[in-house]
């Protein structure tokens, strides 16, 4: 089964993926923070049964994973593939995960809330991702009793999720705006619009790989459609600004040089740290989008960005590796993939 992250979608030069997440709880049980492991397992069994034996075409494509049974690498790899939150693997007791075969849908059981439904799609694709989350939610609502209040909407452990319980997020690649030092200004403007922008990797001021996550902050008093429409409008403006910033930057020979060097390194380097790898892949993605590098699909880069993460690397190799072994294998993975792509048609700079 081809995983969702092996494809690229609408506005794929900037928007890597779309995520819709619903938070839901069962009326009859206290929230997970107030449950012992035994009761957590009861909740997990109820949710698992509702999905696997529910009247849905998707039911047979779900796999149920008992979180305590995973190795640490397998658990961390789930986070690297954006299937679960870091919080979810910090204490795995009593927690379960339902995962669709193409990894586009995951249902976390007993994270902060009893149920977290998450749907991921490539590119900008809010409506389609919402549609699937909505269907799974309706299916669960038929078989379980959700905690719901006429005034406050869906009840959640944290009041920040009350109302629709929906968080819609877009993963954005913003090397142009990052290099133009525009991120702080943009982030503060967005917070006034009820949206939040944060780095995907690393908590520094310049997130690794120039990957950012844009999501809605407010969930109460605003419908799902309206929240998604706001997010989409703002995202499209950001996409336009990012493209403009890229065009301006690529007039600079130093930027073009950095992109071209990254491409060269990706094809010949023998050792590559995670940090260097993210930087190179980000530069290459930037280069493809601006035509400096030809003929590599975004989906190849999207896939490499995930497959070269430390735990996913070890999971794919099937054993624990020291950091230096990982650097060697990471370089191998990148090199062999990039050498399969065509030789670039290096364009001369105009003017």
């Amino acid at each position, binding site marked *: 089964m081809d995983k969702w992250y092996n494809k690229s979608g609408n506005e794929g030069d900037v928007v890597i993926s779309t995520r819709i997440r619903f938070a839901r709880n069962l009326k009859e049980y206290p929230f997970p923070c107030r449950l012992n492991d035994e009761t957590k397992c009861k909740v997990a069994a109820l949710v698992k049964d509702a999905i696997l034996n529910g009247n849905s075409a998707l039911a047979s494509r779900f796999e149920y994973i008992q979180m305590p049974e995973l190795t640490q690498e397998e658990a961390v790899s789930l986070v690297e593939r954006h299937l679960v939150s*870091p919080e979810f693997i910090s204490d795995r007791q009593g927690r379960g995960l339902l995962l669709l075969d193409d990894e586009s849908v995951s249902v976390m059981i007993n994270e902060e809330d009893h149920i977290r439904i998450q749907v991921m799609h490539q590119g900008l694709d809010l409506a389609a991702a919402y549609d699937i989350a909505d269907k799974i939610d309706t299916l669960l609502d038929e078989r379980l009793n959700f905690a719901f209040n006429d005034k*406050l909407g869906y009840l959640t452990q944290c009041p920040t999720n009350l109302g629709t319980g929906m968080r819609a997020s877009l993963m954005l690649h913003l090397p142009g705006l990052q290099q133009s030092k525009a991120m702080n200004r943009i982030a503060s403007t967005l917070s006034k619009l009820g949206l939040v922008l944060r780095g995907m990797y690393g908590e520094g001021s310049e997130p690794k790989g120039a990957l950012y996550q844009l999501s809605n902050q407010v969930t109460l008093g605003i*419908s799902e459609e309206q929240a998604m429409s706001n997010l989409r409008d703002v995202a499209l403006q950001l996409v336009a600004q990012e493209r403009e910033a890229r065009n301006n930057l690529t007039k600079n020979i130093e930027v073009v040089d950095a992109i071209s060097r990254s491409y060269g390194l990706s094809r010949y380097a023998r050792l590559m740290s995670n940090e260097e790898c993210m930087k190179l892949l980000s530069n290459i993605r930037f280069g493809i989008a601006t035509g400096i590098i030809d003929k590599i699909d975004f989906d190849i880069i999207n896939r490499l960005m995930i497959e070269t993460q430390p*735990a996913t690397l070890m999971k794919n190799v099937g054993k624990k590796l020291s950091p230096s072994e990982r650097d060697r294998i990471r370089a191998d993975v990148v090199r062999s993939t990039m050498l399969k792509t065509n030789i670039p048609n290096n364009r001369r700079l105009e003017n």
Partner: protein
Amino acid sequence: MLCQSCGQNQATTHIKTIINGELAEVNLCRECAQKLGYNSFFGNFGMDFDKFLGSLMGGNESRTLKSRKRCNCCGSTFEDIAKSGKVGCANCYDIFYDELLPSIQRIHGKTVHIGKLAKSAGSEVKMKSTLAKLKEELTAAIKEQEFEKAAKLRDQIKELEAKG
């Protein structure tokens, strides 16, 4: 503990994250957390609650009285919720509705849900939501000059309103 981003202020926001294949916790001060998009209305929730309680309740006496109220489902007191920033169960929202409302207002700017309803939603809310949807469709139909459709929608709306 000092903030790991600026290295100067006291860290108040703790974020679980993955660094180089390992689960780690990053500790940030309020300012850095906000700068990095961890807009934690909730990181300061506990503090705000204390202030809120203090100003509202005045003396210590009423405060202890207030904190004696317990959720009959999960056993949480309001202080438990304020300190941990975690609401204990669905029932807590009924028991501590008045106490929670100011924070909810501050977080979302609104206090009444709009959007999808669970099957357990009350019939009145369900009808209101259906009405709102029909009215939206009606406006759209008039705009598109689909008068036959509009007439049907108007009848449906009238019928529903008569029931209510």
